[in-house]
């Protein structure tokens, strides 16, 4: 398997000399092509900071992140946007759809930013929407459709450009349990059938149980690492709960 992402001893500090907060304190791991990795941890464990650093929205204090041998931490400021739009796909907790655009236009937006020829945009948008079962609502506005449909639209937007890695930040956070389950099945499908590489941050064990591998963070460090292997999802879920109990995280984080 090809290594897509290589995180090497990254650190992220906040604050000044007298009062340093280590949001990330020396994390290293690899992501291989076609992997579905979950990152779990309590609030303040550094999982969102980690995701932000990988997604180039935030910068690291030290260490390196390589995407297919290119060092992301060395990319110049003016090239970052280009790098991001060509290599990364984003799924956010609150969908981040523009309510002035229709569902179709929200998906097409990323393609226009990437300067895809106008004729192809329509084709690609329709194709991806059909795959995710939202072609019926393409002409509606975000506030006219359900949360699950919105998130599916967001996923379309994340993958329509064929990014090298998809970064998802609490993708089920704003959905009810039924919609969340549907969404996770879609993501699992994407991973299995389309061989999409996904990195998902969540604190919900059920969501995490859809991933193939989970990293647990605590106080900015990797606390534990488990793999699904050939296990049933239910067993994997229980295993996650065990680790969480061990993690001693806030009871609120364990559903």
């Amino acid at each position, binding site marked *: 398997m090809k290594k897509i992402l290589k995180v090497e001893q990254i650190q992220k500090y906040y604050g000044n000399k007298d009062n340093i907060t280590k949001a990330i304190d020396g994390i290293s791991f690899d992501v291989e092509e076609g992997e579905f990795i979950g990152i779990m941890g309590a609030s303040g464990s550094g999982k969102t900071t980690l995701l932000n650093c990988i*997604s180039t*929205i935030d910068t690291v204090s030290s260490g390196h992140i390589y995407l297919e041998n290119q060092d992301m931490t060395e990319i110049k400021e*003016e090239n*970052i*946007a*280009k*790098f*991001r*739009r*060509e290599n*990364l796909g*984003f799924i956010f907790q609150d969908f*981040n759809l*523009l*309510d*002035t*655009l229709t569902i179709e*236009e929200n998906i*097409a*937006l*990323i*393609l*226009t*930013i*990437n300067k*895809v020829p*106008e*004729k192809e*945009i*329509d084709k690609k948008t329709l194709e991806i929407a059909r795959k995710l079962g939202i072609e019926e609502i393409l002409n509606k*506005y975000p*506030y006219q459709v359900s949360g699950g449909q919105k998130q599916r639209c967001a996923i379309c*937007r994340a993958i329509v450009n064929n990014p090298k890695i998809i970064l998802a930040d609490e993708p089920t956070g704003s959905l009810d349990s039924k919609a969340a389950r549907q969404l996770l099945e879609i993501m699992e499908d994407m991973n299995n059938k389309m061989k999409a590489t996904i990195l998902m941050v969540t604190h919900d064990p059920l969501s995490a149980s859809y991933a193939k591998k989970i990293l647990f963070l605590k106080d900015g460090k990797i606390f534990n690492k488990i793999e699904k292997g050939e296990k049933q999802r239910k067993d994997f879920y229980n295993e996650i709960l065990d680790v969480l109990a061990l993690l001693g995280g806030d009871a609120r984080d364990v559903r």
Partner: protein
Amino acid sequence: MLGKLSFRNAKRQAKDYCIYFITVIISVALMFSFNSIATSSDISELSSYMNYFSKAIAGISIIIVLVMAWLINYCMVFMLEKRSKEFGTYQILGIEKKSISNIFTLENLMIGGIAFIIGIALGTFLYQIFTSIIMNLFNQPYQIEISFSLKAIGITAIYFFGIFALVLLNCRRKIKKIKVYDLLYAEKKNENNIIKNAKGNIILFALSIVLLVGAILINNNEFANASNMVGRNIFIAIVMLIVGIYLFYISISSFIVKRYLNNKSRKYKKDNMFLYRNLTSKINTMSFSLGTIALMFVIILTGANVALLMNNLINNEIEMGYPYEIMISTQDGDFSKYKEYIEKNTKVKNMYEYRLYNIEEVGIAKKGFEGTPFQGKSDNKIDCVLGLTDYNKLREMLGYEKINIHDDEIIINCLKTTKSAFEKYTKENCEIRIFEKDFKIKEIRSESIAQVGFNGFYYAIIVPDSFIPIIKQEDEKLRTKNDINATTVKVGEEKNEIYNLDFAYKLVATTENMTDEKFYQELSNFIINQDREMTGEINGEEQQYTMQISLGNVKTKGEKMSQSKSFYATISFLAFYIAIIFVMATATLLAIQQLSDSEKYKYRYELLKKLGMDELQINRTIFKQLLFYFAIPMVLPIIISIPIILSVSQVFAIGVTMEEIFRNIGIILGMFILVYGIYFIATDVQFDRNINGNG
């Protein structure tokens, strides 16, 4: 404590309202400086006509106050809504509504007070500039001195704080009525009506274009025949214009959607989609305000242009109608006493007396003016005729070269504005028959020899001296026809008729120095006394009638200049005053709208950034968004007002040339775009800062 908190919150928002604050300061400064001019004795003593200036400023202040009230009210209500979350939080903490509205009042009074003080200081400075411009216009020396007019400060304070008090009362009422829930969730409200019935709107859009074009055409048609203008049609055109403008702004977003977003290849080009969606959702929520702004722009643009046209008209009247310092017409040709008086009181350079002849119209003007804006303008049924010797003498006095003609040639000397009409006519018809004799029209000349009613109405025919005896006979014949060109004046029980043609004996003089208003008064008094001597004791009404005739037949350049300068100062300052305040108010409103919406836009642009747009592209998109936003209420008014101005200016055609009309339009649009542009750039800079988060 609460005061401190609120003060800090206000300070944090200050950057969004900086533009508003500056606009209020400049408005106060303008208000104060104009009020100072209105109350200044230096200015009102410049000329007897400058009194109108003060009165006009007082009148115009009503409009200014209304515009200011509109702006301040809009901005304050806006601020109130933006800070609703803050006020809602206070209320949840248990602070009474009354103290909240007290804080809001106090804050705004503080802002207003500071703006007022700075404005007065700036206004004092502006007053000096304006005064020196006016003094310069009247060739008076002026020394800059810092002086406050208490009266002007008083008037400005009454206007300004009056507006503030009313607006604050309105805000307090709003705070009183509002519920906590609304305050807390006001920010979450979406812009409604994002989707509209697109098909219906496209029809509305087409209808608005039809209405606007129709209004312009009707308007043009009416002004083309200004002499028999139908008031009802003008009214219909105005109604069509107003309805058309509002419909345009209600339906334009659907048009944009159809034009740019229903066509996929156009939609997906560059940032079109993002841009137009942002724009249309904004236009939809404020189509009514945009319509009002556009309507006001049309009025201001047209009004300012008409004001400048009147200025041109007056300046041209002086240039075309008053080339000689003193011009007198009499019935009997005895100028000896007048000459004596003039020589005694001024330094005469040159003086000449002659006779102007009136004959029945020979047809040049009637045919020459056909189909031009001058049609029907010269319906006197008479032509004025000058002999060549007199003509050359009149030219010589003004330093023009001598002209020779053969015995079978004539010249037409006309106003510069009518020259092209005559030339076009004579190109095809250069032969003319006058009283059984054939003449050739040698040329059309347009030197100014006082042809605004003195040496003819807009033109005169110059004939060889040898032809004068025949002209003289015709002139006598015409005089016996009583019905021509008579003005009926009632004197006592009897109706008397005056004939302009009776005053055919002319005296013109040029002097070393320009005469003043006082000389004119004295000269007219002298002439009236002469008349009285001739007619003996007459009763009051008749005396007034004689006076009118006497005054109408005495003209001095000096008096006319003083009148026109006052008029010039009044019109241009007032047009400038209204236009600038209005443009500033409107631009401020648009700027504040966009800047305080930048929170919402920040989220949208942030997303674009995450999706991989770089800062340069984002700034470019912001620039485009703001450019469209500022252009939308302005482009339509410009497109509409230019044809309207051109139609209206047909009325002024006799006194104003086409170049002057286009120059006016250029000047006004230039100023307009300059002020508007400054606001646009300021908004763009601040917007970039807000979005990129380093401001």
